[in-house]
């Protein structure tokens, strides 16, 4: 029978079929753990006297609470410190591998899995974190779970799961210059809404998706959850294999050949039936920004803040009114005129090396706008080291930005990196909820290119607004910086 990519991966992991409406029992290949959602799960094991069934399929990192300054000193905030120390103790007690602050592979859990080559096509990947959908970019079935489920996976390496529906999202054609994968996903969420993906696994396909780099694909899958979806997936191809080859945990030799042969079968059959389908033309897209307080409240940068009276749907109108008020905006105000206080470049959405390179190329030799604070926070310590080896950190510092250590940082402000009440940011992260980046903080979600241009001009801007006459920078390494090396 013809199947979708998601169904193929699911079927390959069924330990036991549920009968009479009971869920299937699914095997989990990779379980990622961080300090916030795991403490009670480990405690539950301890109380029941159960071991971790497969420590060798489990990996822990510290990310949500880690400070991005003074990482060699004890963590000042006691709640943060307790959570991190608890994770360290649990990892030691249960034999789980952990990458702690100060380790090259410490960082946001959704960067660490891919960079180590642990995230591979066809796997089931779970983590007590909604943005686990990121790993779907490799053709893995990857989704976030709750703390009880974390305990369940630790104890059994399986999860009882009810089947989901499938949605195909086809993006045809090629992106125009200045638009990125971030703009694709913001446009998709604006189109289907924050609940539009509920109950579905989204599969992104089409020419525009195929021509994206692995990191750009991760950005898209990362934000699937913002459309309410269970997971997002992209079928693996040469780009995927090239990213994986040579990574520490990628298969080698004959194993590599066997793996690639299998991975190549992981695509939706031509006659596979999806429960829903959506088609987008990439050439219609332009840089997108959010104006409101959920990721679905986004518009092309050339647009204006909506005028609530013109919104037909009553619920949406009320939501827009509330969002405009919280965001301190005026209906009808052109988005390009919005002044920001802070630019945050980082997170599991856009804190990878390609993101940092494209930002560095834009800001190189320039100075940030006065009064704007610019925070650059790499997604992992290794991304940071790579950036430093490529000389990017110096470019950022010369620009007037702060160059920080790795972690979630201002994406959710669990550490000291927060917005002050009323402060406005252009952020490359994934959530613009009220207070997400600090109590009373106002967030505009943007791509790294828009973030860079905004940092220069002080108002929401696209690369084109800089009128450099140069082609739009991509995520390839800078070739003319001294000391270029791979870490």
């Amino acid at each position, binding site marked *: 029978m013809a199947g979708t990519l998601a169904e193929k991966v699911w079927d390959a992991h069924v330990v036991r079929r549920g009968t009479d409406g009971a869920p299937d029992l699914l095997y989990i290949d990779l379980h990622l753990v961080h300090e916030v959602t795991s403490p*009670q799960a480990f405690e539950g094991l301890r109380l029941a006297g159960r071991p971790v069934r497969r420590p060798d399929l489990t990996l822990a990192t510290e990310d949500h609470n880690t400070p991005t*300054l003074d990482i060699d000193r004890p963590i000042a905030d006691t709640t943060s410190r307790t959570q991190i120390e608890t994770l360290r103790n649990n990892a030691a007690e249960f034999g789980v591998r952990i990458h702690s602050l100060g380790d*090259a592979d410490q960082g946001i859990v959704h960067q660490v899995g891919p960079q180590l080559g642990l995230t591979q096509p066809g796997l089931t990947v779970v983590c007590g974190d909604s943005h686990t959908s990121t790993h779907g970019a490799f053709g893995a079935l990857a989704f976030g779970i709750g703390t*009880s489920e974390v305990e369940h996976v630790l104890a059994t390496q399986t999860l009882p799961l009810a089947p989901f529906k499938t949605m195909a999202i086809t993006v045809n054609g090629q992106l125009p210059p200045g638009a990125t994968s971030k703009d694709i996903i913001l446009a998709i969420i604006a189109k289907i809404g924050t609940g539009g993906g509920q109950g579905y696994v989204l599969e992104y396909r089409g020419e525009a998706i195929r021509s994206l780099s692995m990191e750009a694909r991760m950005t898209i899958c990362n934000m699937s959850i913002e459309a309410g979806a269970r997971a997002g997936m992209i079928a693996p191809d040469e780009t995927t294999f090239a990213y994986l080859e040579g990574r520490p945990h990628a298969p080698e030799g004959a194993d590599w050949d066997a793996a690639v042969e299998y991975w190549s079968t992981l695509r939706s059959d031509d006659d596979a039936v999806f429960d829903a389908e959506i088609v987008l033309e990439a050439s219609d897209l332009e840089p997108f920004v959010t104006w409101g307080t959920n990721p679905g409240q986004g518009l092309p940068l050339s647009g204006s803040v909506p005028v609530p009276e013109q919104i037909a749907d009553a619920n949406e109108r009320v939501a827009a009114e509330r969002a405009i008020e919280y965001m301190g905006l005026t209906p009808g105000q052109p988005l390009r005129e919005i002044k920001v206080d802070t630019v945050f470049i980082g997170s599991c959405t856009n804190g990878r090396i390609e993101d940092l390179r494209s930002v560095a190329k834009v800001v190189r030799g320039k100075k940030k706008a006065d009064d704007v604070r610019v925070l650059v926070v790499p997604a992992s310590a290794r991304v940071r080291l790579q950036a430093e080896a490529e000389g990017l950190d110096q470019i950022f510092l010369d620009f*007037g930005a702060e*160059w920080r250590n790795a972690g979630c940082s201002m994406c959710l402000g669990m550490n000291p990196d927060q917005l002050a009440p009323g402060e406005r940011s252009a952020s490359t992260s994934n959530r613009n909820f009220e207070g997400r980046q600090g109590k009373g903080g106002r967030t505009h979600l943007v791509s790294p290119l828009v973030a860079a241009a905004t940092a220069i001009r002080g108002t929401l801007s696209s690369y084109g607004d800089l009128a450099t006459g140069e082609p739009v920078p991509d995520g390839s390494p800078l070739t003319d910086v001294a000391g270029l090396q791979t870490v």
Partner: protein
Amino acid sequence: MEKFTQHTGVGVPLRRSNVDTDQIIPAVYLKRVTRTGFEDALFAAWRGDPEFVLNQDAYRSGSVLVAGPDFGTGSSREHAVWALKDYGFKVVLASRFADIFRGNSGKQGLLAAQLAQEDIELIWKILETRPGTEITVDLEARTVLCDDVVVPFQVDDYTRWRLMEGLDDIGLTLQHVDEIAAFEANRESWRPATLPAKHLPPVEIKAARPVEVAIGRRPA
């Protein structure tokens, strides 16, 4: 999870309806990293009141809570069940429960037994007339015995079976451990494992280059 067939313990009359999870355990306690020791958080807002039922000697050691209708509404926090269990409660009797609370209870070995409201009233009277009266809850027979009153209660078959067998979700899955092991035996050897750890060439980690922390234009 311990097997549950019958339980006898002091009944505690909680004459309130709509006791939501915020009243069972306020949100401030959710920051903890432990899963036990929540007994101090149970009904935290009411515990300061000397008149509150759990502050009266006769009821202090209670293990069967007799509550008003719609117990456990509100958020899905499992902490509500942990707090009740940590205090020592084994059973909650009420005429109606919130679905999520009932589900969470079943998973954690706390019996949420549904009685007719008039039976609840009857039991309240007995407990208030003779504080410290014990209640016997018989899960097998689905009956509650309080003094000379015997009344039936409802609990769904699946939850009852799980409680009587002492099976939590994980315990249930582990009944199929042979199937899990068989699945594992068939997994391709090239599938990735986190152990033994493989690393990229080691690098010395220092803090990122020193930065001057700029403060942006922070509105007053």
